Structures are given as C-alpha cells and as structure tokens.
C-alpha cells in the first residue's frame, strides 16, 4: 500500500547550537563515510553562532532535476534518495545543489548524500544527527503539519531558498540576555 504523503524536514535552532560537531561525527559514524565525505557540515556563522546543514530534501530538488541518469527519487515521506547503482559519478548534482549536499565519494567514485537515516526512521528511530544533538538544536518534524509562528524559512548565511524550496526551518538567533566570560 502507498504511504501517506509527508515532508520530513530538519528544524535548526540557532541559539541552541554551540558548534560541538556531535551531529557531524554521528552522521559519519552511522553511515561509515570516507573521511573526505561530509554529508553534514557544521560551519561558523558569526562569532558565537553556528549552522549545521546536510541535504535539505528539497521540495524542488536541483539534484533530481539535473541528474541525466534519473538516479534521484523523492520518497512519499519527502526524503530525497540517490540510487548509487544508477549514479555514474558525473558530478552534475554536486555542482547544481546550492547547499553542497551531494558529495563525491573517492572510494566508490560516485556521488552520495544524506538519506535522512531512513533505515533508522523505518525502525522508528530519529536520524543519527538528531539523536546525537545534546542541546536539541537539531530536530526533525513533518513540515506538512508542523506549525510554530517563531520559525522562519531562512537565516542570514543560508543560501537562497527560492530555487529549491528546502525542507528546513529555523529558529533564528535572538538577542542574548546573558554572556559567559571567556
């Protein structure tokens, strides 16, 4: 039977992330990727804010559009998957993605990307990156039903979302009331 249409997506709270990189390490550990392949990347936005980004499983994925082998599919739950059997490693998806999600794997000589840990999700578990986030800065929800007036579609430092309509939402940085002395 066909499953109900969902759009699973990440929600990132800028205030809660302190750049520990646990999500990035958990992703690498779960998927056993090569040391040069970063499906999830944590980068510094400003002096005290960070951004953790992986594939955003876009509504209009560019990788899906440009792939000459039709190796990409979008599952009913919104996860964009790559079929490595069809991938020839041409690199078009790597160039097209505004978020740098597909990565070239030198071992397999093909493109690979975050698959939102769908085997874990099928077992009822959250993606490894979400589970590893100790401050709950990174969560994941069904964006078709999730509703919170505080969230925004993009934050400064995040690439233009107009083209691909990514499945990520943000709690933007708020003005801090307390500072820790360094």
């Amino acid at each position, binding site marked *: 039977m066909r499953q109900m249409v969902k759009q699973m997506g990440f929600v990132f709270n800028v205030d809660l992330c302190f750049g520990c990189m646990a999500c990035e390490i958990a992703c690498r550990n779960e998927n056993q990727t090569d040391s040069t392949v970063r499906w999830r990347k944590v980068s510094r936005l400003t002096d005290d804010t960070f951004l953790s980004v992986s594939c955003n499983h876009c509504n*209009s994925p560019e990788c899906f559009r440009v792939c000459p082998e039709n190796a990409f599919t979008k599952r*009913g739950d919104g996860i964009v998957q790559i079929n490595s059997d069809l991938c020839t490693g041409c690199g078009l998806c790597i*160039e097209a993605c505004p978020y740098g999600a597909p990565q070239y794997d030198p071992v397999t000589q093909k493109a690979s990307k975050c698959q939102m840990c769908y085997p874990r999700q099928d077992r009822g578990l959250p993606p490894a990156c979400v589970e590893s986030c100790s401050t709950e800065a990174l969560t994941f929800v069904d964006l078709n039903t999730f*509703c919170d007036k505080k969230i925004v579609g993009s934050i400064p430092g995040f690439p233009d979302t107009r*083209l691909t309509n990514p499945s990520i939402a943000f709690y933007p940085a708020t003005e801090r009331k307390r500072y820790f002395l360094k």
Partner: protein
Amino acid sequence: MDLVESTFFVPDYLHDLLVASEKGLKGICAELASILSLPVIITDPLFNHLAAAQLVNNVEINYIDNQQEEIIGEKPLVVNCQFTSNGVPINGICSAILLDGRLRGYLFIQIGEDAAEKIARIYSIIAYASSLCTLELRKRLELKQERQQFKEAFIYDLLYGNMKQKNEIISYGNIWGWDFTQSHTIIVFSLIDFDYYSEDQKHIDSLFYLIERVLIESNLKPIAMKKRGEIVVIYQLLGEEMETNESVIKEFIQRVKIQAEIMDRNNRMATGIGRESSNPEELYKSYQEAKVAYEVGLLLNIHTPFFNGLGLERILYKHDLQDVKEYYDHTLGKLEKHDQVHGGELMHTLEFYAANQYDITKTADALFLHRNTLRYRFKKVEEILDKKLDDMNVRLNITAAFKIKQLRKI
C-alpha cells in the same frame, strides 16, 4: 404536559429533519422546504447549488445583505438576501453553513415580501437545519480526505517520477477514472508571498476546492493535490495542436482566476504551466518546468507563463549565480559604474533601447526624448563599453545582461 416533559419535549418537525438528514443535503433541503412550505436552496460558498427543493424557476443569488464577517460569527446569523427568479427579484433569508469556523456554504430560503418579519419566527429552525448541514458537510469532507490520501500518494509519485512503468501508471489511474493514455500537462497554482503561518493555508484550501469545481465543470476528472503552499493540477489535454491546448489552458486559468476573485477580493493567485507530456512516466519533468514557469512568471510579470513560451530566461534562471553575476559585470559593469559616478541615465536609456528591439524611434517615443539626444547617449555608451551597439552579438549580450537583472539575480 408537566414541567419536565415540556422542558425535554422535542417537536416532531425537528425529529423529521434529523431523520431526513440521513439522506444527505437533499434530504435536509426537501424536509425543511416541506415544513416551511417555502423553496429552499443549499449552495457552496461560490453559490453553486448543492441541493434545492420546491423551486419553481431557476434562481440566481444576487447579494447577501450583511458583510461576510458578520455572517461568520461563532453562531451563524440569519440575514436578509435577494435572489432573481426568472428575472424577478425576490427577497429571501440566508444562513451561513460553518465548519470549524470556516464558511462551507449557505442555506437560502425564498420568502417573498415580508422577509424581515418572518426571520424572527423561523430563525431557530433555520439555525437547526444549518447545523445539520454542517454535520453532513463534515461527513463528506472526512470521506473526501480519506479518498484524497490515496490519490495524493499516487499523484506525488507521478510528480517525482517514482513510478517507472507506464502500464502501472495507466492501470492505477483507471481506479479513479483518469486516462493516462492521453497527453497531460502540469499546472502549478500558488499564492504570491505565501505565508504558511497566516490565513493563507485556508485560502489554498478554498482555491483547491474552486479548481476542482472548475475542472468538473469543464467535464474533466480532477487530478489535483495540495502541497504545502501550492496546488498541482495534472491537466488532461484533449486537443492535438499545441496552440489549441494553450488557449484551452488559458481559458481554464482565467475561469479559476475570476472565481477566485469573487471568493476573495485580495486574491494573490499566480500560476505556471509545464510542457505537454504524452508519456505519464515523464510528467515529473513537466512539474519541474511548471515551477520554473511560475517563478519566472512572477519575476517578469507574465500573467499565464508557459514554460514553452520562456526563452533565454529559463536558462538564465537556473544558471549558476556567480557565473551570471560575472557575465553581467563583464557586459554592463563599466556602464553601471559610470552612471553611479556621474549620476547619468545611460543604463536606463540602454535598457529601454533593448526593450524596444534596438529601434531608435520607438525608444525615443517611449522615453519622450529627441532621437538626436538618444544618438548622443548611445555614442557615449559605445565609448564607455568600447563596443559597437549595431553589432548583433553585442546586442545579444546586452539583452541577456538585462534579462539577468530582471530575474533579480543581481
């Protein structure tokens, strides 16, 4: 009758109405008309008849007395309204049918002369019938949502090319009476500046209902789904020639637009149309194209943007941002800098020149300038850019650079 008995007494006509509600809106309509001995009409929010009883002639609803905001309160008000029956205006009363605080239809009773007087006397039975209609509409809606879930999963797979077998698509489509042996195209509808956390989601729901209605009126079985802020329609094309199909699609969109404006005066609907596909496996391409046409249409103010009708824009829109910025700077950067330093209008003049197909007379008319003034300015542009404006390749580069600017890439 003692006090307890009179307190809990349920009149026969209420019981009859409740029993009649088993037969749906038609049952409620017929029973209410028989109790009141007056014609009754139940419509959707667009005044399309859902059920009617005891009508002598065709009835058109002209206006409802109160503003919509007053009708849609916590408790539906019963207000005056006016119909036209066989060209003759007739007074009536109307009650809104609300479901979860949203307008789902109207209950009209044709009364005649003394409408205001009668409202007070039959108010409570109309409110009761209106509540029964709400229950019936809720039942319908739940059933429809249940069915829609399966349809949506199928349409979703079509839109993302997850179904690779043509025969499988055709046989699945047959379940709902959709003929995928015919050509189809994708039409995307959305609201400009859609805000998920405002009332916009309700507007999308109403628009979805309206689109389904217009498709049914066009004798087409609606293949449509809502996807967050957009409505995707897989439109069946019956003609073979592209021009005929385009005019049919334009007419369909125009009808939706007119109806949407009736429903909501501040309607912000925009649309995009992909290319025709005779192979249902490749409908996902048409969907991607429709979304590009939608975005480009918004940027260039095209009312009904067909992907087929987009020229250079469709390449520039998707092209790498850094690359197009460099191209723009390389082509017009010097001129832009000159204008900034000297406060000139050379960029503006050149833009008009390009928009008027490099025709000096047309540009002079458009800018209210003398042709010689224009010639002087173009000479200056040629000096700054160090290029000849009558060279075809230079013109092509300038046109492309202005298109990049229009597409807000800069």
